[in-house]
Protein backbone atom coordinates (compact mmCIF):
# COMPACT_ATOMS: atom_id res chain seq x y z
CA UNK A 1 0.00 0.00 0.00
CA UNK A 2 1.34 3.43 -0.93
CA UNK A 3 2.22 5.39 2.21
CA UNK A 4 1.71 9.12 2.72
CA UNK A 5 4.58 10.82 0.92
CA UNK A 6 6.24 14.11 1.74
CA UNK A 7 5.91 16.41 -1.25
CA UNK A 8 8.46 18.57 -3.03
CA UNK A 9 7.46 22.19 -3.38
CA UNK A 10 10.69 23.81 -4.48
CA UNK A 11 14.15 23.03 -5.74
CA UNK A 12 17.06 24.51 -7.64
CA UNK A 13 20.80 24.20 -8.10
CA UNK A 14 24.00 25.94 -9.08
CA UNK A 15 26.20 23.62 -11.12
CA UNK A 16 29.20 23.80 -13.46
CA UNK A 17 26.73 24.19 -16.34
CA UNK A 18 25.50 27.45 -14.80
CA UNK A 19 22.88 28.79 -12.43
CA UNK A 20 19.53 27.02 -12.27
CA UNK A 21 18.47 23.41 -12.65
CA UNK A 22 17.03 24.25 -16.07
CA UNK A 23 20.52 25.19 -17.29
CA UNK A 24 21.91 21.95 -15.88
CA UNK A 25 19.08 19.97 -17.48
CA UNK A 26 19.74 21.53 -20.90
CA UNK A 27 23.44 20.84 -20.47
CA UNK A 28 22.79 17.16 -19.83
CA UNK A 29 20.36 16.93 -22.77
CA UNK A 30 22.99 18.51 -25.01
CA UNK A 31 25.21 15.49 -24.21
CA UNK A 32 28.12 17.88 -23.57
CA UNK A 33 30.21 17.62 -20.45
CA UNK A 34 31.06 20.53 -18.16
CA UNK A 35 34.20 18.69 -17.02
CA UNK A 36 37.29 20.65 -17.99
CA UNK A 37 40.88 21.38 -16.94
CA UNK A 38 41.22 22.56 -13.35
CA UNK A 39 42.61 26.11 -13.17
CA UNK A 40 42.30 26.64 -9.41
CA UNK A 41 45.59 24.96 -8.43
CA UNK A 42 48.47 23.02 -9.92
CA UNK A 43 47.36 19.54 -10.96
CA UNK A 44 50.56 18.41 -12.67
CA UNK A 45 51.26 15.77 -9.99
CA UNK A 46 47.78 14.29 -9.92
CA UNK A 47 46.39 11.38 -11.85
CA UNK A 48 43.93 13.70 -13.58
CA UNK A 49 43.72 17.43 -14.21
CA UNK A 50 39.98 17.30 -14.92
CA UNK A 51 37.05 18.40 -12.80
CA UNK A 52 33.72 20.17 -13.21
CA UNK A 53 33.99 23.59 -11.61
CA UNK A 54 31.65 26.54 -11.30
CA UNK A 55 32.96 29.55 -13.15
CA UNK A 56 34.07 32.77 -11.48
CA UNK A 57 34.29 31.61 -7.89
CA UNK A 58 36.89 33.85 -6.26
CA UNK A 59 39.43 32.47 -3.77
CA UNK A 60 40.14 34.38 -0.56
CA UNK A 61 38.32 37.59 0.41
CA UNK A 62 36.86 35.91 3.47
CA UNK A 63 34.25 33.87 1.64
CA UNK A 64 34.77 30.18 1.01
CA UNK A 65 33.95 28.59 -2.34
CA UNK A 66 30.93 26.77 -0.93
CA UNK A 67 29.61 29.92 0.69
CA UNK A 68 29.86 31.73 -2.64
CA UNK A 69 27.99 28.81 -4.21
CA UNK A 70 25.31 29.01 -1.52
CA UNK A 71 24.93 32.76 -2.10
CA UNK A 72 24.32 32.08 -5.78
CA UNK A 73 21.88 29.35 -4.85
CA UNK A 74 20.02 31.77 -2.59
CA UNK A 75 19.54 34.12 -5.56
CA UNK A 76 18.01 31.22 -7.45
CA UNK A 77 15.35 30.33 -4.88
CA UNK A 78 12.15 30.57 -6.81
CA UNK A 79 9.62 29.88 -4.07
CA UNK A 80 8.75 31.67 -0.84
CA UNK A 81 10.96 30.14 1.85
CA UNK A 82 9.01 29.36 5.05
CA UNK A 83 10.73 30.93 8.03
CA UNK A 84 9.88 27.98 10.27
CA UNK A 85 11.46 25.37 7.98
CA UNK A 86 13.83 22.91 9.60
CA UNK A 87 17.19 22.84 7.86
CA UNK A 88 19.37 19.88 6.95
CA UNK A 89 22.75 20.62 5.45
CA UNK A 90 24.58 17.85 3.58
CA UNK A 91 28.28 18.17 2.91
CA UNK A 92 31.50 16.19 3.11
CA UNK A 93 34.08 18.93 3.48
CA UNK A 94 32.18 22.21 3.70
CA UNK A 95 34.45 25.25 3.76
CA UNK A 96 37.61 23.20 3.32
CA UNK A 97 39.43 26.06 1.57
CA UNK A 98 39.65 27.85 4.96
CA UNK A 99 41.64 24.89 6.28
CA UNK A 100 43.81 24.82 3.15
CA UNK A 101 44.50 28.54 3.53
CA UNK A 102 45.67 28.27 7.12
CA UNK A 103 47.97 25.35 6.39
CA UNK A 104 49.36 26.92 3.21
CA UNK A 105 49.57 30.57 4.24
CA UNK A 106 49.13 30.70 8.01
CA UNK A 107 45.95 32.75 7.67
CA UNK A 108 43.57 31.72 10.48
CA UNK A 109 40.83 29.38 9.29
CA UNK A 110 41.09 25.84 10.64
CA UNK A 111 38.18 26.22 13.06
CA UNK A 112 36.16 28.06 10.43
CA UNK A 113 36.08 24.95 8.28
CA UNK A 114 33.83 23.05 10.73
CA UNK A 115 30.53 21.87 9.30
CA UNK A 116 28.61 23.11 12.35
CA UNK A 117 29.63 26.69 11.56
CA UNK A 118 28.53 26.31 7.96
CA UNK A 119 25.13 25.16 9.24
CA UNK A 120 24.78 28.38 11.25
CA UNK A 121 25.71 30.42 8.16
CA UNK A 122 23.17 28.52 6.08
CA UNK A 123 20.47 29.31 8.66
CA UNK A 124 21.24 33.01 8.32
CA UNK A 125 21.61 32.98 4.56
CA UNK A 126 18.36 31.16 3.83
CA UNK A 127 16.55 32.98 6.65
CA UNK A 128 15.08 29.87 8.22
CA UNK A 129 14.68 29.52 11.95
CA UNK A 130 13.72 25.87 12.42
CA UNK A 131 15.93 23.19 13.93
CA UNK A 132 19.13 22.43 12.10
CA UNK A 133 21.39 19.47 11.52
CA UNK A 134 24.30 18.51 9.32
CA UNK A 135 24.34 15.08 7.73
CA UNK A 136 27.44 13.48 6.36
CA UNK A 137 27.24 10.00 4.91
CA UNK A 138 30.08 10.05 2.40
CA UNK A 139 28.90 10.42 -1.20
CA UNK A 140 25.37 9.45 -0.20
CA UNK A 141 25.14 12.48 2.14
CA UNK A 142 22.45 14.49 0.41
CA UNK A 143 20.24 11.55 -0.54
CA UNK A 144 20.47 10.42 3.09
CA UNK A 145 19.56 14.01 4.05
CA UNK A 146 16.49 13.86 1.79
CA UNK A 147 15.57 10.54 3.41
CA UNK A 148 15.87 12.06 6.89
CA UNK A 149 13.80 15.07 5.85
CA UNK A 150 11.11 12.81 4.41
CA UNK A 151 11.16 10.71 7.56
CA UNK A 152 10.73 13.76 9.81
CA UNK A 153 7.70 14.80 7.77
CA UNK A 154 6.13 11.35 7.51
CA UNK A 155 6.55 10.82 11.25
CA UNK A 156 4.99 14.27 11.82
CA UNK A 157 8.03 15.60 13.66
CA UNK A 158 8.13 18.41 11.12
CA UNK A 159 5.93 19.66 8.33
CA UNK A 160 8.55 21.55 6.35
CA UNK A 161 12.23 20.75 5.83
CA UNK A 162 14.75 22.54 3.64
CA UNK A 163 17.63 20.33 2.51
CA UNK A 164 20.71 22.16 1.23
CA UNK A 165 23.85 20.52 -0.11
CA UNK A 166 27.24 21.86 -1.16
CA UNK A 167 30.81 20.78 -1.77
CA UNK A 168 33.58 22.30 -3.83
CA UNK A 169 36.50 21.19 -5.95
CA UNK A 170 39.63 21.69 -3.86
CA UNK A 171 43.26 20.68 -3.82
CA UNK A 172 42.41 18.83 -0.62
CA UNK A 173 39.88 16.57 -2.37
CA UNK A 174 41.59 16.15 -5.74
CA UNK A 175 44.90 15.18 -4.10
CA UNK A 176 43.06 12.60 -2.01
CA UNK A 177 41.13 10.98 -4.84
CA UNK A 178 44.32 11.03 -6.90
CA UNK A 179 46.19 9.13 -4.17
CA UNK A 180 43.44 6.51 -4.22
CA UNK A 181 43.86 6.18 -8.00
CA UNK A 182 40.16 6.95 -8.39
CA UNK A 183 40.32 9.68 -11.06
CA UNK A 184 39.80 9.36 -14.80
CA UNK A 185 42.36 11.25 -16.93
CA UNK A 186 39.59 12.01 -19.40
CA UNK A 187 36.06 13.07 -18.58
CA UNK A 188 34.23 10.42 -16.58
CA UNK A 189 32.56 7.65 -18.59
CA UNK A 190 29.97 6.00 -16.35
CA UNK A 191 29.13 2.40 -17.30
CA UNK A 192 31.53 2.56 -20.26
CA UNK A 193 33.61 -0.56 -20.79
CA UNK A 194 36.75 1.63 -20.85
CA UNK A 195 35.89 3.69 -17.78
CA UNK A 196 38.82 4.53 -15.54
CA UNK A 197 37.41 6.48 -12.66
CA UNK A 198 35.53 9.56 -11.58
CA UNK A 199 35.99 13.28 -11.99
CA UNK A 200 35.18 15.51 -9.06
CA UNK A 201 32.52 18.18 -9.58
CA UNK A 202 30.99 20.92 -7.45
CA UNK A 203 27.42 21.99 -6.92
CA UNK A 204 25.11 23.61 -4.43
CA UNK A 205 21.47 22.62 -4.42
CA UNK A 206 18.30 22.78 -2.36
CA UNK A 207 15.03 20.95 -2.13
CA UNK A 208 12.07 22.05 -0.03
CA UNK A 209 9.88 19.26 1.34
CA UNK A 210 6.49 19.67 3.00
CA UNK A 211 3.67 17.57 4.29
CA UNK A 212 0.90 17.30 1.72
CA UNK A 213 -1.47 18.99 4.17
CA UNK A 214 0.73 22.05 4.57
CA UNK A 215 1.48 22.28 0.84
CA UNK A 216 -2.27 22.21 0.11
CA UNK A 217 -2.98 24.77 2.80
CA UNK A 218 -0.34 27.14 1.43
CA UNK A 219 -1.44 26.40 -2.16
CA UNK A 220 2.08 25.35 -3.11
CA UNK A 221 2.59 23.74 -6.50
CA UNK A 222 3.64 20.13 -5.91
CA UNK A 223 6.53 19.11 -8.14
CA UNK A 224 6.97 15.56 -6.92
CA UNK A 225 7.14 13.41 -3.84
CA UNK A 226 9.58 11.25 -1.92
CA UNK A 227 7.68 7.97 -1.86
CA UNK A 228 10.27 5.70 -0.26
CA UNK A 229 13.78 5.65 1.09
CA UNK A 230 16.30 3.15 2.37
CA UNK A 231 19.82 3.33 3.76
CA UNK A 232 22.25 0.48 4.28
CA UNK A 233 25.91 -0.28 4.81
CA UNK A 234 27.96 -2.92 2.98
CA UNK A 235 30.03 -3.45 6.15
CA UNK A 236 32.73 -4.56 3.79
CA UNK A 237 35.49 -2.06 2.96
CA UNK A 238 36.30 1.55 3.81
CA UNK A 239 36.77 2.73 0.21
CA UNK A 240 35.53 0.00 -2.11
CA UNK A 241 31.95 -1.18 -2.55
CA UNK A 242 30.77 -4.71 -1.94
CA UNK A 243 31.46 -6.30 -5.33
CA UNK A 244 28.16 -8.16 -5.50
CA UNK A 245 26.06 -5.08 -4.71
CA UNK A 246 24.45 -6.72 -1.68
CA UNK A 247 24.42 -3.50 0.34
CA UNK A 248 22.77 -1.45 -2.39
CA UNK A 249 20.27 -4.29 -2.94
CA UNK A 250 19.34 -3.98 0.75
CA UNK A 251 18.93 -0.20 0.50
CA UNK A 252 16.67 -0.49 -2.57
CA UNK A 253 14.54 -3.15 -0.90
CA UNK A 254 14.21 -0.95 2.18
CA UNK A 255 13.14 1.96 -0.03
CA UNK A 256 10.49 -0.16 -1.75
CA UNK A 257 9.24 -1.37 1.62
CA UNK A 258 9.23 2.17 3.01
CA UNK A 259 7.04 3.28 0.10
CA UNK A 260 4.82 0.19 0.22
CA UNK A 261 5.74 -0.40 -3.40
CA UNK A 262 6.79 -3.24 -5.69
CA UNK A 263 9.83 -3.20 -7.96
CA UNK A 264 7.51 -3.45 -10.97
CA UNK A 265 6.25 0.06 -10.30
CA UNK A 266 9.63 1.68 -11.01
CA UNK A 267 9.92 3.23 -14.50
CA UNK A 268 13.56 4.31 -14.63
CA UNK A 269 16.76 4.58 -12.61
CA UNK A 270 19.09 7.48 -11.91
CA UNK A 271 22.21 5.56 -10.93
CA UNK A 272 25.11 6.87 -8.85
CA UNK A 273 27.31 5.85 -11.84
CA UNK A 274 30.60 7.42 -10.79
CA UNK A 275 32.65 5.94 -13.62
CA UNK A 276 34.81 3.79 -11.36
CA UNK A 277 35.09 0.16 -12.39
CA UNK A 278 33.80 -1.24 -9.12
CA UNK A 279 30.96 1.18 -8.37
CA UNK A 280 29.26 0.88 -11.73
CA UNK A 281 29.58 -2.88 -11.81
CA UNK A 282 28.26 -3.21 -8.28
CA UNK A 283 25.23 -1.07 -9.13
CA UNK A 284 24.33 -3.15 -12.18
CA UNK A 285 24.46 -6.31 -10.08
CA UNK A 286 22.16 -4.79 -7.48
CA UNK A 287 19.69 -3.56 -10.14
CA UNK A 288 19.58 -6.95 -11.84
CA UNK A 289 18.98 -8.65 -8.51
CA UNK A 290 16.09 -6.32 -7.75
CA UNK A 291 14.43 -6.15 -11.17
CA UNK A 292 15.19 -9.64 -12.48
CA UNK A 293 14.57 -9.94 -16.19
CA UNK A 294 13.08 -6.47 -16.50
CA UNK A 295 15.51 -3.99 -18.07
CA UNK A 296 14.98 -0.41 -16.92
CA UNK A 297 16.24 2.72 -18.70
CA UNK A 298 19.12 3.93 -16.52
CA UNK A 299 21.47 6.89 -16.65
CA UNK A 300 24.13 8.73 -14.65
CA UNK A 301 24.77 12.47 -14.67
CA UNK A 302 28.39 12.30 -13.49
CA UNK A 303 29.85 12.44 -16.99
CA UNK A 304 28.08 15.81 -17.25
CA UNK A 305 28.71 17.54 -13.92
CA UNK A 306 31.28 15.26 -12.32
CA UNK A 307 30.90 13.64 -8.93
CA UNK A 308 29.60 16.46 -6.79
CA UNK A 309 30.31 14.55 -3.55
CA UNK A 310 27.98 15.77 -0.78
CA UNK A 311 25.67 17.23 -3.43
CA UNK A 312 25.56 14.11 -5.61
CA UNK A 313 22.32 12.66 -4.23
CA UNK A 314 20.46 15.95 -4.27
CA UNK A 315 21.62 16.72 -7.82
CA UNK A 316 20.41 13.27 -8.88
CA UNK A 317 17.05 13.92 -7.22
CA UNK A 318 16.62 17.28 -8.98
CA UNK A 319 17.41 15.75 -12.37
CA UNK A 320 14.91 12.97 -11.60
CA UNK A 321 12.26 15.65 -11.01
CA UNK A 322 13.07 17.12 -14.43
CA UNK A 323 12.72 13.67 -16.01
CA UNK A 324 9.34 13.17 -14.33
CA UNK A 325 8.05 16.52 -15.56
CA UNK A 326 9.31 16.08 -19.11
CA UNK A 327 9.01 12.31 -19.57
CA UNK A 328 12.53 12.44 -20.98
CA UNK A 329 15.65 10.76 -19.57
CA UNK A 330 18.98 12.45 -20.29
CA UNK A 331 21.79 10.61 -22.05
CA UNK A 332 24.64 9.26 -19.91
CA UNK A 333 27.08 11.99 -20.91
CA UNK A 334 30.59 10.75 -21.68
CA UNK A 335 29.69 7.12 -22.28
CA UNK A 336 30.64 5.79 -25.71
CA UNK A 337 30.91 2.02 -25.43
CA UNK A 338 28.43 0.72 -22.91
CA UNK A 339 29.87 -2.06 -20.78
CA UNK A 340 28.40 -5.46 -21.55
CA UNK A 341 27.16 -5.67 -17.99
CA UNK A 342 25.06 -2.52 -18.52
CA UNK A 343 23.93 -3.29 -22.07
CA UNK A 344 20.28 -2.46 -22.62
CA UNK A 345 20.10 -0.46 -19.40
CA UNK A 346 22.37 2.51 -20.09
CA UNK A 347 21.45 4.77 -22.99
CA UNK A 348 23.82 7.06 -24.83
CA UNK A 349 20.93 9.14 -26.13
CA UNK A 350 17.95 10.73 -24.43
CA UNK A 351 14.97 8.43 -23.92
CA UNK A 352 11.29 9.33 -23.98
CA UNK A 353 9.00 7.33 -21.72
CA UNK A 354 6.14 7.63 -19.26
CA UNK A 355 8.12 8.26 -16.16
CA UNK A 356 6.33 8.84 -12.90
CA UNK A 357 8.15 6.56 -10.42
CA UNK A 358 11.96 6.70 -10.38
CA UNK A 359 14.64 4.99 -8.33
CA UNK A 360 17.69 7.09 -7.50
CA UNK A 361 20.73 5.47 -5.87
CA UNK A 362 23.95 6.64 -4.27
CA UNK A 363 26.86 4.86 -2.64
CA UNK A 364 29.91 6.17 -0.88
CA UNK A 365 33.06 5.44 1.07
CA UNK A 366 32.53 3.10 3.97
CA UNK A 367 29.98 1.18 1.91
CA UNK A 368 27.13 3.55 2.71
CA UNK A 369 24.22 3.11 0.26
CA UNK A 370 21.02 5.05 -0.16
CA UNK A 371 17.99 4.60 -2.36
CA UNK A 372 15.20 7.10 -2.94
CA UNK A 373 11.96 6.49 -4.77
CA UNK A 374 10.77 9.73 -6.26
CA UNK A 375 7.33 10.05 -7.78
CA UNK A 376 4.80 12.57 -8.96
Amino acid at each position, binding site marked *: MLKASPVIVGYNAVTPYGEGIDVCWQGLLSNQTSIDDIKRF*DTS*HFKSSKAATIKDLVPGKGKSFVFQMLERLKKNINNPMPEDADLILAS*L*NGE*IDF*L*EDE*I*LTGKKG*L*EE*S*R*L*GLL*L*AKAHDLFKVKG*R*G*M*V*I*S*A*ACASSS*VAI*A*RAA*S*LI*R*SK*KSDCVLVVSCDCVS*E*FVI*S*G*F*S*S*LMALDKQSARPFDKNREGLNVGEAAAYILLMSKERADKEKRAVKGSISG*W*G*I*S*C*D*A*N*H*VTGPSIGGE*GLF*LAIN*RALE*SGGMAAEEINSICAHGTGTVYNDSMEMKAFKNIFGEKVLPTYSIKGGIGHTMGSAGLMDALVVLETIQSNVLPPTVGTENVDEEAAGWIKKEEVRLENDVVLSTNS*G*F*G*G*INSALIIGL
Partner: protein
Amino acid sequence: MISMQGIGWITEDRFGSIFRENITEYTDRKKVHSIFRDASILLAPIKNFGRFDKVSRNTCLAISLALFDAGIDYSKGTMQDFGILSTDEEGCLQSNIEYFKDYVECGRKLSRGNLFVYTLPSTPIAEAAINFGCQGPVLYLTFQEDQTNQILEQGRIMIESKEATNLLIVNASEEESICFLLKEEKGALKNGWMDLEEVQRAVKGIGVLPEVIKKILQKDKNEVIDYIS
Protein backbone atom coordinates in the same frame (compact mmCIF):
# COMPACT_ATOMS: atom_id res chain seq x y z
CA MET B 1 8.78 1.60 23.58
CA ILE B 2 12.41 2.20 22.64
CA SER B 3 14.73 0.70 25.20
CA MET B 4 18.34 1.36 25.99
CA GLN B 5 19.88 -2.07 26.37
CA GLY B 6 23.56 -1.26 26.53
CA ILE B 7 25.72 1.76 27.24
CA GLY B 8 29.48 1.70 26.87
CA TRP B 9 31.88 4.55 27.48
CA ILE B 10 35.60 5.22 27.48
CA THR B 11 37.67 8.18 28.69
CA GLU B 12 41.41 8.73 28.75
CA ASP B 13 41.88 6.64 31.90
CA ARG B 14 38.71 4.59 32.43
CA PHE B 15 36.10 2.61 30.56
CA GLY B 16 32.89 0.97 31.57
CA SER B 17 29.53 -0.50 30.77
CA ILE B 18 26.49 0.75 32.61
CA PHE B 19 24.20 -2.24 33.09
CA ARG B 20 27.04 -4.57 33.98
CA GLU B 21 28.22 -1.91 36.43
CA ASN B 22 31.80 -2.20 35.22
CA ILE B 23 34.29 0.58 35.61
CA THR B 24 37.90 -0.28 34.78
CA GLU B 25 40.89 1.98 35.11
CA TYR B 26 43.79 1.80 32.67
CA THR B 27 47.02 3.69 32.19
CA ASP B 28 48.38 2.79 28.76
CA ARG B 29 46.16 3.65 25.82
CA LYS B 30 48.22 1.43 23.54
CA LYS B 31 47.20 -1.62 25.54
CA VAL B 32 43.45 -0.98 25.50
CA HIS B 33 42.82 -3.28 22.54
CA SER B 34 44.47 -6.22 24.30
CA ILE B 35 42.75 -5.39 27.60
CA PHE B 36 39.41 -5.52 25.77
CA ARG B 37 40.35 -8.82 24.12
CA ASP B 38 41.44 -10.37 27.42
CA ALA B 39 38.20 -9.28 29.10
CA SER B 40 36.15 -10.65 26.17
CA ILE B 41 34.70 -7.21 25.57
CA LEU B 42 36.06 -7.51 22.05
CA LEU B 43 35.01 -10.91 20.76
CA ALA B 44 37.35 -10.64 17.79
CA PRO B 45 40.34 -8.40 17.10
CA ILE B 46 39.64 -5.16 15.26
CA LYS B 47 41.46 -5.37 11.96
CA ASN B 48 43.81 -2.42 11.28
CA PHE B 49 43.03 -0.92 14.70
CA GLY B 50 46.54 0.50 14.96
CA ARG B 51 46.07 2.41 11.72
CA PHE B 52 42.73 3.99 12.70
CA ASP B 53 42.55 7.63 13.66
CA LYS B 54 41.77 8.36 17.33
CA VAL B 55 38.04 8.98 16.81
CA SER B 56 37.66 5.69 14.92
CA ARG B 57 39.44 3.84 17.74
CA ASN B 58 37.23 5.41 20.40
CA THR B 59 34.13 4.76 18.31
CA CYS B 60 34.93 1.05 17.95
CA LEU B 61 35.83 0.69 21.63
CA ALA B 62 32.62 2.35 22.84
CA ILE B 63 30.55 0.19 20.48
CA SER B 64 32.23 -2.98 21.73
CA LEU B 65 31.44 -1.92 25.31
CA ALA B 66 27.78 -1.24 24.47
CA LEU B 67 27.42 -4.63 22.74
CA PHE B 68 29.15 -6.28 25.70
CA ASP B 69 26.83 -4.44 28.09
CA ALA B 70 23.80 -5.71 26.20
CA GLY B 71 25.21 -9.24 26.01
CA ILE B 72 25.13 -9.27 22.22
CA ASP B 73 27.52 -11.70 20.59
CA TYR B 74 28.98 -11.10 17.17
CA SER B 75 31.53 -12.89 15.11
CA LYS B 76 33.84 -11.86 12.32
CA GLY B 77 32.12 -11.95 8.95
CA THR B 78 28.59 -12.31 10.32
CA MET B 79 26.27 -9.47 9.36
CA GLN B 80 23.90 -7.90 11.83
CA ASP B 81 20.80 -5.75 11.48
CA PHE B 82 22.34 -2.84 13.35
CA GLY B 83 22.70 0.73 12.14
CA ILE B 84 25.15 3.28 13.53
CA LEU B 85 24.57 6.99 14.04
CA SER B 86 27.33 9.23 15.28
CA THR B 87 27.78 12.80 16.37
CA ASP B 88 30.50 15.01 17.80
CA GLU B 89 31.48 18.64 18.06
CA GLU B 90 34.32 18.77 15.56
CA GLY B 91 33.57 16.44 12.67
CA CYS B 92 36.86 15.20 11.30
CA LEU B 93 38.74 18.48 11.75
CA GLN B 94 41.85 16.90 13.29
CA SER B 95 42.03 14.25 10.57
CA ASN B 96 41.60 16.94 7.91
CA ILE B 97 44.50 18.89 9.40
CA GLU B 98 46.68 15.79 9.66
CA TYR B 99 45.98 14.79 6.04
CA PHE B 100 46.56 18.19 4.46
CA LYS B 101 49.62 19.07 6.55
CA ASP B 102 51.20 15.79 5.56
CA TYR B 103 50.42 16.47 1.89
CA VAL B 104 51.97 19.95 2.11
CA GLU B 105 55.03 18.58 3.90
CA CYS B 106 55.41 16.10 1.02
CA GLY B 107 55.81 19.07 -1.34
CA ARG B 108 52.17 19.08 -2.54
CA LYS B 109 53.01 16.24 -4.87
CA LEU B 110 51.93 13.12 -3.01
CA SER B 111 49.24 12.50 -0.47
CA ARG B 112 48.46 9.51 1.64
CA GLY B 113 45.26 7.67 0.83
CA ASN B 114 45.27 6.07 4.27
CA LEU B 115 45.00 9.55 5.83
CA PHE B 116 42.54 10.84 3.23
CA VAL B 117 39.95 8.19 4.08
CA TYR B 118 39.61 9.68 7.59
CA THR B 119 38.70 13.10 6.20
CA LEU B 120 35.04 12.11 6.18
CA PRO B 121 33.04 12.46 9.41
CA SER B 122 31.37 9.13 8.64
CA THR B 123 34.59 7.11 8.34
CA PRO B 124 34.84 6.14 12.05
CA ILE B 125 31.37 4.58 12.00
CA ALA B 126 32.07 2.98 8.63
CA GLU B 127 35.14 1.33 10.20
CA ALA B 128 32.94 0.18 13.07
CA ALA B 129 30.27 -1.12 10.68
CA ILE B 130 32.91 -3.19 8.88
CA ASN B 131 34.28 -4.58 12.12
CA PHE B 132 30.94 -5.39 13.75
CA GLY B 133 29.10 -6.34 10.54
CA CYS B 134 26.45 -3.62 10.77
CA GLN B 135 24.27 -3.42 7.65
CA GLY B 136 21.73 -0.89 8.88
CA PRO B 137 21.82 2.85 8.19
CA VAL B 138 25.22 4.42 8.89
CA LEU B 139 25.36 8.20 9.08
CA TYR B 140 26.99 11.10 10.89
CA LEU B 141 24.87 13.96 12.20
CA THR B 142 25.78 17.11 14.02
CA PHE B 143 23.55 19.71 15.60
CA GLN B 144 23.96 23.26 16.82
CA GLU B 145 23.39 22.24 20.43
CA ASP B 146 22.38 19.37 22.68
CA GLN B 147 24.21 16.82 20.47
CA THR B 148 23.61 13.65 22.49
CA ASN B 149 19.95 14.25 23.19
CA GLN B 150 19.24 15.22 19.59
CA ILE B 151 20.96 12.23 18.05
CA LEU B 152 19.09 9.94 20.43
CA GLU B 153 15.89 11.57 19.18
CA GLN B 154 16.87 10.86 15.57
CA GLY B 155 17.49 7.25 16.59
CA ARG B 156 14.03 7.07 18.13
CA ILE B 157 12.42 8.34 14.93
CA MET B 158 14.36 5.86 12.79
CA ILE B 159 13.35 2.88 14.92
CA GLU B 160 9.73 3.97 15.34
CA SER B 161 9.37 4.46 11.59
CA LYS B 162 11.01 1.09 10.88
CA GLU B 163 14.00 2.61 9.08
CA ALA B 164 16.24 0.70 11.46
CA THR B 165 15.68 -2.21 13.81
CA ASN B 166 18.58 -1.72 16.20
CA LEU B 167 20.85 1.28 16.47
CA LEU B 168 24.23 2.00 17.99
CA ILE B 169 24.40 5.70 18.73
CA VAL B 170 27.84 7.13 19.29
CA ASN B 171 29.16 10.45 20.51
CA ALA B 172 32.91 10.31 20.08
CA SER B 173 35.89 12.61 20.29
CA GLU B 174 39.64 11.98 20.29
CA GLU B 175 39.55 11.77 24.10
CA GLU B 176 36.23 10.14 25.04
CA SER B 177 33.32 8.30 23.55
CA ILE B 178 29.99 6.87 24.57
CA CYS B 179 27.74 4.44 22.74
CA PHE B 180 24.05 3.73 23.37
CA LEU B 181 22.42 0.57 22.06
CA LEU B 182 18.77 1.15 21.14
CA LYS B 183 16.14 -1.48 20.37
CA GLU B 184 12.39 -1.51 20.15
CA GLU B 185 10.94 -3.41 23.10
CA LYS B 186 7.38 -4.63 22.94
CA GLY B 187 7.20 -6.01 26.49
CA ALA B 188 8.31 -4.63 29.82
CA LEU B 189 11.88 -3.50 30.34
CA LYS B 190 14.08 -6.11 31.96
CA ASN B 191 17.53 -6.46 33.51
CA GLY B 192 17.62 -2.81 34.44
CA TRP B 193 17.28 -1.61 30.85
CA MET B 194 16.35 2.02 30.59
CA ASP B 195 13.60 3.66 28.65
CA LEU B 196 15.10 5.93 25.97
CA GLU B 197 13.09 8.87 27.29
CA GLU B 198 14.71 8.45 30.67
CA VAL B 199 18.18 8.62 29.15
CA GLN B 200 17.21 11.59 27.01
CA ARG B 201 16.03 13.42 30.12
CA ALA B 202 19.36 12.68 31.80
CA VAL B 203 21.48 14.06 28.97
CA LYS B 204 19.23 16.91 27.81
CA GLY B 205 21.03 20.18 27.57
CA ILE B 206 24.46 18.71 28.25
CA GLY B 207 26.74 19.64 25.40
CA VAL B 208 30.10 18.37 26.54
CA LEU B 209 30.86 14.69 26.19
CA PRO B 210 32.66 14.12 29.54
CA GLU B 211 29.63 15.62 31.30
CA VAL B 212 27.32 13.32 29.37
CA ILE B 213 29.33 10.32 30.55
CA LYS B 214 29.36 11.63 34.12
CA LYS B 215 25.61 12.19 34.06
CA ILE B 216 24.93 8.74 32.65
CA LEU B 217 27.09 7.20 35.36
CA GLN B 218 25.17 9.08 38.05
CA LYS B 219 21.92 8.06 36.44
CA ASP B 220 23.01 4.49 36.35
CA LYS B 221 23.92 4.41 40.01
CA ASN B 222 20.45 5.61 40.98
CA GLU B 223 18.89 3.13 38.59
CA VAL B 224 20.91 0.26 39.98
CA ILE B 225 19.97 1.17 43.56
CA ASP B 226 16.30 1.33 42.58
CA TYR B 227 16.55 -1.95 40.73
CA ILE B 228 18.27 -3.80 43.55
CA SER B 229 15.92 -2.43 46.20
